[in-house]
């Protein structure tokens, strides 16, 4: 693995290997007083975030630090980016300083692909190899989120293949949904997208999933339901009439959550808007895997850094 730009960079074996590594790292750290492995000592990981983020940035930083990598955080504010430097120049600058890995979040879809193309081109001249990890690019993908979701499904449901996962809400603008649909399909899950037609992408019928507008009809047969955040700015785009109607039709209320089978889990990539897409009591119930997702996020990102920087393939 050279870069992690899209979940489609991974076949089922590679994705499973990453999840297995995450499990092993989790076990290795379990009960340790000093949570520090020497694995990536001397390696430099730079996170470069052009969008606000708490969990993803911190998760990558912890992942790096627990494996003894030197982690450095760059944000678009307070850097040369605010002086008008191009994405190309900023990324080549960080790469030239010797970053082994650049973890990037950017509002433009495809930004991580472009950075990988630029640094690969530069590598031909300098010989410096920099791995690029996509930590969310526009409305395109968020591969490590999908991997941590897969890790959580596997942990809580005992497997992924054959399980039915519902993804509910703003699929159109969701990089989390895109990464999940394709990764879960690769791993053999059955994915159902549940959303009003306005929040489904054109051409979704060609994705490896099924589409439904009726949440109540789908819930009884789901093994997991993944609620997507509804961004306030979507209100102005006439995607749905009101937040009230959205909550009524697509919010996961306690009554609705009761329609799920007993073994089913509730997931959310965060940040949650309690009372909009998910009721507080549902988010905090035993069936909720939301904080488990966050915990697994660290281990999955450790696994990604490990596979990229330590050259492990299995």
């Amino acid at each position: 693995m050279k870069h992690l730009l899209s979940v489609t960079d991974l076949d089922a074996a590679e994705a499973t290997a990453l999840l297995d590594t995450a499990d092993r790292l989790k076990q290795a750290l379990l009960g340790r007083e000093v949570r520090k492995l020497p694995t990536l000592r001397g390696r430099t990981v730079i996170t470069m975030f052009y969008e606000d983020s708490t969990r993803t940035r911190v998760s990558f930083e912890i992942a790096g630090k627990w494996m003894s990598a030197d982690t450095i955080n760059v944000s678009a504010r307070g850097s040369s980016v605010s002086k008008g430097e191009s994405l190309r120049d900023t990324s080549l600058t960080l790469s030239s300083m010797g970053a082994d890995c650049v973890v990037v979040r950017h509002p433009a879809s495809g930004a991580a692909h472009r950075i990988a193309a630029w640094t690969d081109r530069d590598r031909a001249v300098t010989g410096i190899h920099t791995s690029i990890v996509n930590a969310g690019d526009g409305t395109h993908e968020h591969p490590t989120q999908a991997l941590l979701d897969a890790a959580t499904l596997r942990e809580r449901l005992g497997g992924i293949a054959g399980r039915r996962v519902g993804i509910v809400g703003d699929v159109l603008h969701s990089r989390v949904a895109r990464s999940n649909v394709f990764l879960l399909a690769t791993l053999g899950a059955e994915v159902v997208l549940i959303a009003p037609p306005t929040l489904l992408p054109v051409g979704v019928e060609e994705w490896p999933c099924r589409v439904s507008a009726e949440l109540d009809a789908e819930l009884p047969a789901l093994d997991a339901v993944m609620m997507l955040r509804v961004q306030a700015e979507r209100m102005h785009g006439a995607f749905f009439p009101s937040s009230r109607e959205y909550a009524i039709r697509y919010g996961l209320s306690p009554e609705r959550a009761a329609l799920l089978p007993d073994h089913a889990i509730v997931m959310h990539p965060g940040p949650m808007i309690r009372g909009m897409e998910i009721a507080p009591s549902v988010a905090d119930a035993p069936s909720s895997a939301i904080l488990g997702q966050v915990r697994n996020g660290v281990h999955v990102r450790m696994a990604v850094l490990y596979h990229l920087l330590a050259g492990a393939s299995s």
Partner: protein
Amino acid sequence: MSLVIRNARPYGEEPVDLLVEDGVITEIGAGLAGPEGAEVLDGAGQVLLPGFVDLHTHLREPGGEESETIATGSAAAALGGYTAVFAMPNTDPVADSEVVVEHVRRRGEEVGLVDVHPVGAVTVGLEGQKMAELGTMANSRAQVRMFSDDGRCVHDPVIMRRALEYASALDVVIAQHAEDHRLTVGAQAHEGVVASRLGLTGWPATAEETIVARDCALAREAGAALHICHVSSARTIDVLRLAKEQGVRVTAEVTPHHLLLTDARLTSYDPVNKVNPPLRTAADTEAMRTALAEGLIDVVATDHAPHAAQYKDTEWAAARPGMLGLQTALSVVVHTMVEPGLLDWRGVARVMSERPAEIGNLPDHGRPIAVGEPANLTLVDPDGVWTVRGENLASKASNTPYEGMRLPATVTATILRGRITARNGEVA
């Protein structure tokens, strides 16, 4: 000044010799000697066509000289076989007054490689609010015959209606960039399977069709000439067919890239493929080819849009839309239309020279290859094959989507009023 062209095949037909004197074809026949000291062009095996006319070029001057100038763009035009180009008004300052259009015209004449006809803005500053002084520009030294807010759509139906009505008395054409911008807010790519997967906000084909339908209705009422820029969607063809059947004075152009390229190229996120309107699907390119062959689309126009590297070598969303077109247009037309048998060389002359000259109201271009006609001519090697390299193109920018492609047909000479402006890939 005399020129003899030997053994060239007009429209790909039987070889003849041509004598050109003082910019006019004076004799056509076999074994013409020509006067002492006449320049001789060997046209053996080559196709002779009327010089190409491009209704849609961005020369970027004034204001965008880091991407193209009238000099570099004229060179690209001559090398591409063009003898006349229409320069779009989205410059800085905008070509919305006689001062700017006369400047562009004069710079074109100074360079002298191609007739540069400035297109005037329909509205002041391309803002879509207030009609520009169309009559003053039309009657200026620049003799503006086409008006457009290209890059932007004249969106307000009242402004569009008045512009069409007003233009009808001036014998000029309004060229519309058909895009309902309310439907394309934030648009980055053709709304379809590819853009959805890539997370690029869609540019729905309906945003084009609805404006074309509306403007055809307005043009019918106004009795005005309407030209639709860069048609990209198959369903727009249906609208054009209906309008033409009803006698609306509407004409339309397709770009070479909408004949050849599709949104399948977008997966690399390389903004060299970013253009407005966007690359669409294979079904759309197929429909464009058929419509061009049938005449529902009248002409090929390049939408030559140079952008310096700093505007293109960026993340997709930040990149400016547009691609080079002048030097690759003929080859793409040969590849997509001539090779599959959709057009013969008469057809190429029609869509790249004759119809554009009619639409743009240029009496001396797109004329028959006949005695007494102006010698605006292009000589093409139909068997030539070349590999496109952006850095070797004459444009200042190198944003060609055809980089590395091997394409058929080369322009071996371009002749503007009897003077050779380009020969064997060199500006003359």
